[in-house]
């Protein structure tokens, strides 16, 4: 059972375009929603994160939109660049005596010149 559903699986975007990755969840105990960026041969690295009491968070070209009632959140990458080509994972966290993070299945983004 996938607690965090992520789509699309892969995405090709033209340089300068907007990349959009969507995630949905069911567990209302999640209290923190990070996005990770992973380059080939590297570990995932935190990109941006949001709490459910905020509807939007922007950091540079990266924006998270959060819809608590719909249990959905999305990552928007504005002015996408070839250097943004990577795999992106949404995630959701809850505390169960430890930081339990559930990851989406990932989106492989390719930004073409």
């Amino acid at each position, binding site marked *: 059972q996938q607690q965090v559903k992520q789509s699309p699986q892969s995405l090709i975007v033209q340089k300068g375009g907007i990349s959009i990755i969507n995630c949905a969840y069911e567990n209302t105990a999640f209290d923190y929603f990070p996005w990770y960026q992973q380059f080939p041969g590297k*570990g995932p690295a935190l990109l941006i994160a949001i709490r459910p009491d905020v509807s939007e968070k922007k950091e540079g070209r990266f924006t998270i939109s959060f819809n608590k009632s719909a249990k959905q959140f999305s990552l928007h990458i504005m002015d996408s660049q070839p250097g943004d080509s990577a795999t992106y*994972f949404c995630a959701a966290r809850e505390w169960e005596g430890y*930081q339990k993070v559930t990851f989406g299945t990932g989106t492989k983004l390719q930004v073409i010149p």
Partner: protein
Amino acid sequence: DAGITQSPRHKVTETGTPVTLRCHQTENHRYMYWYRQDPGHGLRLIHYSYGVKDTDKGEVSDGYSVSRSKTEDFLLTLESATSSQTSVYFCAISDRGTAGTEAFFGQGTRLTVV
């Protein structure tokens, strides 16, 4: 990168042999985790530790054991490797105390069981 070192980075082993992967941190973080990453599954938690000698199972713990004898080291052992354990393994660390604490990941270990 946060101070996390995984070793080895690559390993090929035969079915039925024991394998130990090591994660070493220099951040003095309380929590340490082992994940496996497989296509179509994202990252799945194998085991985690919330202190020295304090460990517990994650969602895919069958066939794996862990040990943490020092704050900085977290070992993952495959007692008898199987082909289904071919994967990329990531160690992660985190610490509670600040809002929005995130997990820092190591570079990964690519394990192939033949």
